[in-house]
């Protein structure tokens, strides 16, 4: 199982310039999390801080019982063997060909024979669609191939936690989807914890289990995907829709004068950017057929149901809607929803619930999450409209 990462009050500055402060959140083990944020909010800096390449001034980052912010050099090298990191342009070693690049961690950290190394390396290269390119030097291949080779190298030691810095930069939308699919398949196979740093909204909406967003030097929110995707927070909504209207400006922040001027421009008919209204929670991507079920997804469901009462109403509604009938029984939602479901005339499947029929194992009696007595009550009227309305701005 992947490891849990606990980030507490992490603060980082370069000289006098503060990058972010007081980041506190937990990456649940074996789940796929994404960190969003406008350019220049220190997302990459955060990744580098997690693996100890940069030292934040204060705070902790606990990975498998080791604080990567304060631990000794030796502990750091040990803990890093649990990490697989995909850098923005792959960060391949320019003097080695792809084969040697991917074999590098194996040769350094394991005593595997060269035949075994060869087997593993070719397997990972095939997985990332690079068969036949193993003799090429990084300088001779395209950016997308470099990225995939970097991923192959990151995966070769079967890491417990995988950090991905902008998987989509330099890739076309199709390859981005393929690489996202690969992440989910890998997650299902080795149950590693993923943290993906990205700007890509499609990826952010369909891949991760949990989403966080950095803005104005702080973590705006971090939680289950439904939390951020249904959020009414202006910065989050603006970011998801890619519009000019909102608190995010060309430079880090906007003042009210700029905002007013822009609003006037929009009122006068100027296009605010963005293609369509992006809201609601689209179905999550699934591992490919034949790949085992993601254990992280099962654990996540239990976890989310346990903290359901702490989530805002819209997120709750979206989560409940995404449950299959079996899951409703399991979490004890059925009785309360029965009336509502009947009244809705079976529109439960407005979102195809990908989890349908995937939960197999029965949890022990005491582990079953109870739907907490929350503010949420299924009122038929409300449930007619599972998608949140158009952005209210």
């Amino acid at each position, binding site marked *: 199982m992947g490891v849990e990462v606990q980030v507490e009050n992490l603060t980082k500055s370069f000289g006098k310039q503060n990058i972010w402060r007081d980041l506190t959140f937990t990456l649940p083990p074996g789940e796929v999390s994404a960190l969003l944020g406008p350019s220049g909010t220190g997302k990459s800096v955060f990744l580098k801080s997690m693996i100890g390449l940069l030292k934040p001034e*204060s705070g902790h980052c606990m990975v498998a019982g080791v604080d990567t912010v304060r631990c000794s050099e030796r502990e750091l090298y*040990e803990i890093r063997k649990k990490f697989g990191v995909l*850098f923005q*342009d792959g*960060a*391949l*070693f320019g003097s080695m060909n792809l084969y040697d690049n991917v074999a*590098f*961690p194996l040769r350094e950290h394991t005593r595997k024979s060269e035949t075994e190394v060869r087997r593993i390396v070719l397997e990972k290269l095939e997985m990332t669609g690079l068969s036949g390119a193993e003799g090429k030097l990084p300088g001779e291949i395209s950016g997308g191939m470099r990225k995939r080779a*970097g991923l192959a190298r990151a995966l070769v030691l079967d890491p417990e936690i995988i950090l991905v810095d902008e998987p989509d930069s330099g890739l076309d939308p199709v390859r981005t989807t393929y690489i996202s699919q690969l992440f989910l398949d890998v997650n299902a196979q080795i149950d590693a914890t993923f943290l993906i740093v990205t700007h890509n909204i499609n990826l952010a909406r369909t891949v991760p289990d949990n989403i966080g967003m950095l803005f104005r030097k702080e973590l705006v929110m971090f939680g289950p995907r439904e939390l951020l995707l249904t959020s009414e927070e202006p910065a989050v909504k603006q970011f998801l829709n890619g519009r000019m209207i909102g608190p995010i400006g060309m430079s880090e922040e906007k003042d009210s004068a700029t905002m007013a001027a822009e609003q006037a421009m929009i009122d006068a008919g100027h296009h605010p950017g963005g293609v369509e209204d992006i809201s609601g929670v689209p179905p999550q991507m699934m591992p490919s057929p034949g790949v085992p079920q993601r254990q992280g997804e099962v654990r996540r469901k239990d976890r989310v149901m346990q903290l359901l009462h702490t989530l805002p109403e819209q997120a709750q509604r979206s989560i409940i809607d995404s449950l299959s009938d079996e899951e409703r029984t399991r979490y004890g939602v059925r009785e309360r929803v029965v009336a509502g479901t009947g009244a809705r005339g079976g529109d439960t499947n407005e979102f195809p619930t990908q989890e349908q029929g995937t939960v197999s194992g029965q949890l022990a009696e005491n582990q079953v999450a109870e739907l907490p007595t929350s503010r949420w009550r299924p009122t038929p009227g409300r449930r007619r409209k599972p998608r949140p309305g158009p952005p209210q701005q």
Partner: protein
Amino acid sequence: MATKSEARFPGAGALRQTGSLFALGLDVAVLLFKRPFQLREFVQQCWFIASVTILPTALVTIPFGAVIALQLGSLTRQLGAQSFTGAASVLAIVQQASPLVTALLVAGAGGSAICADIGARTIREEIDAMEVLGVSAVQRLVVPRVLASMLIAILLNGLVSVVGVAGGYTFNVLLQHGTPGAYLASFNALAQMPDLYIGEFKALLFGFIAGVVAAYRGLHPPPGPKGVGDAVNQSVVVTFLLLFLVNGVLTLVYLQIVPTKLS
């Protein structure tokens, strides 16, 4: 919770850099003994440094030996001490000139290449990637390079001594009509074995300094591709300055400890 705050006073930056440089030197010294030793990298680097330094070193050394021979030759002729030309030129070349020439060439040709190589890897995040894979870049990349520049410096020092002395001989005998026998016979009139030892020791130390400074600047280049160029430039300049400083200190200590032969 302890919040690290950087001390601010004039010269703090310079002190910090010096400290980091020494820290890297210490790391290299410690990791020298850590297994597995990167033999392949070491051999490649030795070959590389040797291949870029041998010819320039020899070419620089011939005029060096010649100049010493010519200068000394005219002086000793006026004093009537022509037979000591050989003695003086050997002393000058073996003890002083050859370690310095070696070091300048190792720093200028080898060090700049090391610095550019590591600097380019740093800005392309290769060093980060290596660290993240749990491999120490210092052990993997810096140690073999520093060792290689030390070894090559020692070997080059021998070459330079021979070429320098031979150049001096040629000019003294052919151009100044000195006596070959006298030149050769006076070889050990002033020079002694410790001169050779100190020469080799200096070469070893200079090789170490050149390697460490180059690696240090390469690992911490100013941002951007131009930063790497600046880093290479700085590494060569810093190495030269350090070399002359260290050479001065070593020579003074040496002269205090080892009595000169004629006194």
